[in-house]
């Protein structure tokens, strides 16, 4: 053994003290001081976070930190809550990084968040106003001087040798006593010329300033994008804040529709962008009402289950077999063998998928061209073969994990049992089926279920290897024979070119419910197994 008793704690030291369950308050033990210091740090950290979130007005974070800190102090200073002391750190991370993410996803699933509805309404209105501002054709650009006149930003330009000044309230008017140098106004009585740094500081005011050219708003207004030249622009749309409408020059009215998060005209046309609104259960019902999904849905669901179950079985079978076979000291060099078995695990998965795609290429892949002597087997282009290929590649990718897990779990099987079986004259095969496998299953059955869930959502393999293909020819959605539920979701929510986060979130939740339910049933079965043992 490599860890020799130098680091051995005095775990069984002779002591006259009565047995205790916790050193939580036993100030005679050094453990107490370690804990005290740690808890001081935790509290310092927590209090810092509480103050910071108060300053930032992040009330949700603040509430969470207060609760988490109180719980931490209770758990570690109380004599009770023994299990809590061991669970708290893991649970804290779990709550923040997994549960919170689930809750947020659930919230998003009730909105229309996605392309065209990417931000709030205020941002949408601003952007529509900005993009509808167009330069009036045939008008010149002017060198512009930005002024501060009585606290307000104003523009000064020279038109036909005449210096003109205007601001938000006052249209361009002649200022005869302004100084003009090289076609640019350099000085205006009663106003300060702003230099670039000052302009930069007030850039929002400067960039949003619209100076009417004349008293008639139809003549357009002067604006600038870079504070050095100005041009005359007009808007294609007029926003009426009270009525919440945009009106175009032909009088077409776009009314804000809070249900869709869009400005919509009577003829159904709308303005871009829209904004995020809550749409209730719409994203959930789409899955059941979209007729395009009805056709392939059943076959995809079947394949998803087949794929995940077969993946677990094949990888586990190979991994376990290897673990058992090479758990034999008589095999020389098994250390090296084992290290090489995990090679597929050590390379990036997406790289492996790319390479396999090349190997399986129908006309030029190594498998057809070299191994099979120029055969032309459509490994990825035929539905059934593609499914086989996906399983084969997943076996390659997945068995090292199972090999590791099984090797680890094998060590927990007491030698006594095996020895007893040997005494009874059981051969290696029988020993495996009667002792090793059942004992191993108790420990790893939950992992097999977890692996099932992982493969159920194994998007990256499908996406990298086949892209879901071969596609159902002419299907109304780009869905193929090797698509599993999650990659179908991806195709529906993203691949038709439009991101629909709301829809994708709703579908994630539904998938989670399905996988969770199936797994929960699986757990009930393994529990029975455990009881039998």
């Amino acid at each position: 053994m490599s860890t020799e008793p130098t680091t051995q704690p005095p775990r069984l030291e002779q002591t006259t003290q009565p047995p205790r369950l916790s050193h939580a308050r036993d100030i005679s033990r050094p453990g107490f001081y370690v804990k005290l210091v740690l808890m001081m740090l935790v509290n310092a950290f927590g209090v810092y976070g509480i103050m910071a979130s108060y300053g930032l007005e992040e009330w949700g974070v603040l509430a969470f930190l207060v609760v988490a800190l109180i719980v931490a102090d209770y758990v570690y200073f109380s004599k009770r809550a023994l299990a809590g002391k061991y669970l708290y750190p893991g649970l804290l991370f779990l709550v923040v990084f997994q549960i919170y993410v689930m809750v947020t996803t659930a919230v998003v699933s009730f909105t229309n968040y996605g392309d065209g509805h990417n931000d709030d309404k205020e941002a949408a209105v601003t952007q529509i106003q900005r993009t509808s501002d167009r330069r009036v054709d045939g008008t010149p650009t002017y060198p512009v001087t930005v002024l501060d006149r009585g606290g307000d930003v104003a523009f000064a330009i020279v038109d036909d040798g005449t210096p003109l000044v205007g601001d938000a309230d006052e249209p361009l008017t002649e200022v005869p006593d302004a100084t003009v140098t090289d076609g640019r106004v350099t000085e205006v009585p009663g106003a300060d010329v702003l230099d670039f740094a000052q302009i930069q500081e007030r850039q929002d005011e400067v960039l949003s300033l619209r100076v009417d050219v004349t008293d008639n708003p139809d003549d357009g207004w002067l604006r600038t994008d870079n504070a050095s030249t100005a041009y005359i622009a007009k808007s294609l749309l007029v926003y009426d804040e009270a009525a919440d409408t945009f009106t175009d020059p032909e009088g077409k009215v776009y009314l804000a529709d809070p249900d869709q998060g869009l400005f919509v005209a009577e003829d159904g046309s709308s303005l871009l962008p829209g904004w995020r609104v809550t749409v209730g259960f719409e994203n959930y019902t789409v899955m059941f009402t979209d007729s395009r999904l009805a056709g392939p849905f059943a076959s995809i669901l079947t394949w998803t289950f087949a794929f995940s179950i077969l993946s677990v079985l094949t990888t586990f079978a190979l991994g376990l077999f290897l673990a058992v076979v090479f758990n034999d000291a008589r095999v020389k060099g098994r250390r090296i063998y084992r290290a090489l078995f995990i090679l597929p695990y050590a390379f990036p998965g997406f790289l492996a998928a790319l390479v396999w795609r090349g190997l399986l290429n129908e006309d030029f892949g190594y498998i057809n061209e070299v191994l099979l002597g120029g055969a032309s087997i459509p490994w990825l282009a035929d539905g059934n073969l593609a499914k086989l290929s996906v399983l084969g590649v997943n076996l390659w990718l997945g068995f090292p994990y199972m090999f590791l897990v099984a090797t680890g779990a094998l060590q927990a099987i007491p030698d006594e049992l095996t020895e007893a079986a040997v005494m009874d004259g059981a051969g290696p095969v029988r020993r495996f089926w009667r002792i090793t496998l059942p004992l191993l299953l108790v420990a790893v059955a939950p992992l097999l279920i977890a692996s099932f869930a992982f493969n159920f959502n194994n998007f990256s393999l499908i996406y990298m290897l086949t892209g879901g293909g071969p596609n159902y020819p002419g299907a109304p959605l780009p869905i193929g024979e090797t698509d599993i539920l999650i990659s179908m979701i991806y195709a529906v929510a993203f691949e038709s070119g439009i991101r629909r986060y709301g829809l994708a979130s709703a579908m994630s939740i539904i998938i989670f419910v399905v996988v969770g339910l199936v797994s929960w049933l699986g757990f009930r079965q393994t529990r029975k197994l455990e009881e039998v043992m």
Partner: protein
Amino acid sequence: MARKTLANGENDTRLRGARWWKEVGWKHVFAILVIIYCLFPLLYVISASLNPGGTLTGSNDLFSTFSGANYANLLDTDYPTWALNSFIVSSATAVGTVVMAAAAAYAFSRFRFKGRRGGLTTLLIIQMFPQMLAFVAIFLLVLTLGEVFPFLGVGSNLQLIAIYLGGALGSNTFLMYGFFNTVPDSIDEAARIDGATHAQIFWGIIMRLVTPILAVVGLLSFVASYGEFILARIVLSRPENYTLAVGMYVWGTDERNAPWSLFAAGAVVAAIPIIALFLYLQKYIVGGLLAGGVKG
């Protein structure tokens, strides 16, 4: 301390001839076959890594060129930085995962509390949530945390470790729980009578007896975080913060100018630490520590 009796209960007497083939020899043949299966796709990667300017799968003419230039060129890229980042992130994740999962497994295995059964199942089921589509939520979380705790913001390795630790429980706890249960309660009992506290029992006794599974979980979580790029991509926004997985992913997704030869060399180098780590941990995983410990 080598023990004479092997795991399968047979004595290590030299086997000869047919019996050797029947019981041991075929295992070598089988091992070679499995290794060929493992290695064969990787030959493309190795071949590409030796061929400057080549494609990854464009040709079946492997090893037509031999050049170490790609490996040397790795040093001119951000690759060394990525390797360092990966090493830090994965090591911290592995250690954190082992400690937290073991602590949780200890609680589930040794204490009886309300919701214990359901809690264990719930832990595993929560991990099944498809995170792939949750990147918006994760991004917002990273932003908010980054505002409150500036060292946890976008681009922070610490933040990434924290996210990985969010998945520390779950299947790891389960794997350990099963193993912890095989350690007889009588051992705890004896220690308790001797006056050991629960913390002493956990750190001093249990943790030593379950070394194989600690090594397995440590390795699994190291490899998982080492190869993870979907979450890492959300948190790490600049090349100098990338981990190897993200960096390689970025190289590989360049549709038109993917530097395949560099990429392949990088993948080969990146695989070495994993193999080395496994070689190192093997003695803990299969060293029979448990049996020795129990017999003590």
